Structures are given as C-alpha cells and as structure tokens.
C-alpha cells in the first residue's frame, strides 16, 4: 500500500511530536529512493525503530490560484516579521479526539471508553512502579494505605520521599498537619514553611519509655540545652506516648551536641536513639 506521507508542499507538522526525540536519520539509496530511520515510543512505553523507504514522485494537483497566492502572504499585525510556518506558542496539535458517528453513539462511546480504560490499566501495570507499603502501582510516598499499613522504615521513607520529610518537619514544628495533607498537596505548603524556618536544628528521639512525658524531656533529659520546642508524639485516641519526640534546638551546635551525648544512652530503662529529624543535606 502506498501512503502519502505529505499532504501538501508544506512540511508535516513535526514540532508537535515529543521534543526529546532523536532526529531521523536519512540515507539516500542507489535507486534514488531514500530510507528514513526514526524512533518513537509505542503505547507500552517501548522504543520502536521505524524504517521507511521513500520514493519521490511527481504529483499533479489543481490548486486555486487565490489560495496559492494567499499562502505566500507576509505576516502582518502582531505576527509581523515572524518567519513563515506555525509558531509553537500559538499553534499546537491537540490530543487525539474521536468522532464515532453512530445512531447509537452513546453505546459506541461507552464501549470505546471501556477499552481505553482496560488499556490504561494494562499500561499502568507495565509502569514498573511498585509501592513498598501496599504493592500497588504508585510511589510508596503516595500510598493511600500508608497510614493504615504503616510506613516501612521511617528513616528510609524519609530519604525516599520529600513529601513525608516535609510533613514530619511540620510535625516537629508542633503544627499539626492533617494526615491527608501530608504528601503532595500539603508538601507544597510545608515546603514553603520549611524554608522560612530553620529546621536544621531539629532532632528526632525514638525508643523513649512510654512513661516519659514532655515535662520530663524538658526538665531532665534536655535540661542543659536551649530548646525552641519539644513535641512528644502521642496516640490520638489513647493519649499514650508513642515513644517518639521531635526537639528543635536553638542552634545547630546544640543539636549536634545533644545527638552526640544522648544517642545510645539509657534513659528510664531504655536505650534511646537520637538522630537528625531528616537526613542532613549538603550546604543546608
């Protein structure tokens, strides 16, 4: 079958294709035909090599003189002086839309939607993303079950997901962030807050004895360092301590000092664990 590759003497609209595509490679063959090798990505996200053999043919076409002359117009108005050819800023190619004409178009439409959905589902399963919490096809940080099934390891999750880090920072600051706000949406807001506040001085204390309350933390354990705020994480229903506290020191030095002195020490019959509340980044 012969396909007409170009509809008119204008170049096909290539600028709408994905930007990061390789330039097609053109080889002129001995018999006057050309071979064009290009790459594209198919529905399954795989790279496909497309090899086209092209022959130049002479086509006779009847063209309206006026139309032909109008095609040679210089640009005017706000477009004055711009080069011929569509400008990406004003002219784009939209996503595929379909017009399925049918006396029972709704049914046809519904059937097509259904097909699309199942294809999308298929594509999704190919995406290779797997949640470590629930095994679903999404990032662990965005897992809808992260609060019910529980995070795998707080530290590791921190390192992986900026969203949770931001949320925890917010918790550390004593400001309650609703569970559903942690993660992508709340992340933006708390990101902003994080920049405003110096969170580099916050440490996380874990493996605290359940009997330890905030007062004890301030008066006994942390008495020798200047503290901005200290928050003990409690079970919302029972009010019992979860053995986890966030402490913001007045200076980074103080925080560093506290970590060195307290980490691995015994307190109220338990060996407590003290660390930076989030992995320290360079140059922060």
């Amino acid at each position, binding site marked *: 079958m012969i396909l007409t590759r170009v*509809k008119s003497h204008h170049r096909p609209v290539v600028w709408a294709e994905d930007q990061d595509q390789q330039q097609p490679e053109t080889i002129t063959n001995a018999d006057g035909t050309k071979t064009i090798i290009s790459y594209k990505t198919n529905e399954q996200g795989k790279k496909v090599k497309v090899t086209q053999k092209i022959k130049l043919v002479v086509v006779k076409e009847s063209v309206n003189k006026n139309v032909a002359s109008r095609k040679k117009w210089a640009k005017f*108005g706000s477009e004055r002086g711009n080069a011929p050819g569509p400008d990406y800023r004003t002219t784009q*190619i939209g996503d595929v839309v379909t*017009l399925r004409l049918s006396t029972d178009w709704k049914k046809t439409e519904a059937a097509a939607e259904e097909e699309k959905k199942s294809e999308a589902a298929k594509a999704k399963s190919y995406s290779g993303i797997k949640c470590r919490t629930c095994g679903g096809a999404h990032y662990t940080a965005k897992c809808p079950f992260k609060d019910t099934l529980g995070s795998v390891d707080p530290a590791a999750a921190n390192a992986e997901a900026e969203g949770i880090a931001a949320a925890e920072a917010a918790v550390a600051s004593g400001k309650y962030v609703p569970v559903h706000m942690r993660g992508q949406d709340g992340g933006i807001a708390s990101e902003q807050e994080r920049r405003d506040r110096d969170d580099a001085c916050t440490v996380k204390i874990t493996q605290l004895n359940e009997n330890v309350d905030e007062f004890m933390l301030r008066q006994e354990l942390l008495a020798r360092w200047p503290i901005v705020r200290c928050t003990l994480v409690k079970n919302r229903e029972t009010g019992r301590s979860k053995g986890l506290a966030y402490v913001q020191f007045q200076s980074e030095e103080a925080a560093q000092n506290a970590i060195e002195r307290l980490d691995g020490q015994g307190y109220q019959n338990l060996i407590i664990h003290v660390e930076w509340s989030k992995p320290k980044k360079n140059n922060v």
Partner: protein
Amino acid sequence: MRPLLLKGHERSLTQVKYNREGDLIFTVAKDKEASIWYSFNGERVGTFNGHGGTIWSIDVDQETLLAVTGSADFSAKLWKVETGENVFTFKLNTPVRRVEFSGKNDRLLCVTDEVMGFKGTISIFKLNYNDIYTQDSTPLVSIETRENFKKVSVAAWTYNDKYIIAGHQDGVISKYDATTGEFIDSAHVHEGLVTDLQFSKDRTYFITSSKDKTSHIVDVDTLEVLKTFETDAPLNSAAITPVKEFVVLGGGQEARDVTTSSMAQGKFEARFYHKVFGDEVGRVKGHFGPLNYIAVHPKGTSYASGGEDGYVRVHEFEKSYFDFKYDVEITAEATKNSSLNDDDDQ
C-alpha cells in the same frame, strides 16, 4: 483525529469563520485582536489590531479582500485581509454585536446593542470597492427593533440578499426586506435568547441555536420550523455541514452547573446531529469550557470550534465521517441509482 489548537487569543472566543475557499480561518475573541490563520496547518498569518474592546463578530467577503469586525468599542472596522490594514471605521451609537457582508459583497449589516437609550438596530451600509478607503458611513437602511419586540441578538442575509433574518432575545425570529428594511414576518421558535443563526450554502434555510437548549432548522420563505434538535445544555452556536447531512451544535452548561471533573477533563463537546432524522450521532470532546462558536469548512472537510476556554480547535474529518450513513439513506440512494439506470435502459 488530532485537532489543531489555535491559542492566539487570551480570552474567550466570540466568533470563528472560514473564508469562501476555506483556506483561512478568522477568529475574534473578548480580547482586542482578530486573528487570521491558515486552516490546513494552524499557522497564524496575522492579526487585525485597532479595536478598543471585545470584538463580538467578524466576517470576510467572497474574494477574501476585505474583512469586517464589530466591536464593543462602538465601531465596525473594515480591514484589508492581506495586510491587516484598517481601511475604514464605521462609528455607531452602541456596541456592535454582529457584522456580515451581503452575498454580492455590495452591502454590510451591523447589529447594534440596545443600551443607553438607543434602540437595538440593524444598520445596512453600502460598500465601495472602487476606493476601499472611502465608504459612506450613513446607513442605506436602519431597521430599528419594532414595538413589542425584544432586542436583536443576531442577523444574517438570505439568498440573493433578498431578506434579512434576525434572531431576538426572547426567541423570536423576524424577517425584513433587505432593500427597504420593511418588516415582513416573524415566528416565535425559541423560548430563550437566539444565540446564533447560520445559513445553508444556498441560503434558503438556516439553523438557529438558543439558550433554551434547542436548535431549529427554519425555512426562509415560510419561517416554518423544519427540524428541531433538543439537547441538555444551553446552546451558543449551530452550523450546517455541507456534503453530509449533519448539523453541529455547540454550547455547554454554565460553569456553576458543571462537575469540576468534567471541567478539568475537557468534557465540553461539539454535538453532531443528523439534519434529516434529528438524532444525535456523535460528539467531539476537548474544550475546557462551553463552546461559543462553531464554523464548518465550506467544503465540509473540517470544522472549527471556539471556546469559552480561549482556544480554537480545528478538526479535520476522517474517512469514517464521510462513510457514515443511515441504512435508510443507503437504500434511498441505491433505489435512486437503480431507477436512474432503468431510465438509461429505456
């Protein structure tokens, strides 16, 4: 099909038109520039700059020499299409809602708003093609809104430029002699504002659209409603397709009545109805707001829709569009052909 997206306007579109050959698309919006585009690749050729307010309407003559725009700045401007030069400005008393060249290009009609104590008026101006810079700014005829009639929202020329048909705010359609401006007839076809009025190719019948969610096909001579298309959304525009017996309707629920999801997903649709059978046969999604205007290529090969979302989407029809026929149509054609053959035999 992948539509061309024309993003030259910053605000919602008000009118979209093809020229006679269909190689150019003229668009106007609530911003102050009219845009002219090549229909085959969506390239913007130029803009008409000079209006000081929303441009409500645009039209182009048969030869694509002159274009006219009507604006909320109380003026209608004539433009040389090739250069975008403003050759003349008609000053009017109130905002101009509709402009249209007569079929022979010798006259121009302007529909002006009914505000500030002025009556809504259809003004007809004579056009001078010998010296396009000199035009007579006194109208040949002024058709004022009659007693007991609501203001005119749209108006257009019939075949032979014989009559002018106007659509009113309350759903009434009225007919006037285009030369004398004399009132001839009226019919109450809609229950709400008539939003658009477009003619068939031979200008013997036209289609109306209305906020009352219906669209009608009406005969010029009798003003009789020939067909009715009922939808579930207020309509802003309706067009008749050449070649195929379809009509395309555009509109959409007001933003407050729409689920946010459908807004986000671009679920505003152009609706295709069969002109003769009146059934809805398909829809095209894509706009993020109601469709404000629909224009069909004069050869029936593509259509353009201008939306409240500020985009113009140009859709080239695929083969399936031309292939689609009702069984009844196929049978009718077959019998017609066979009877023709019989004639040949004799």
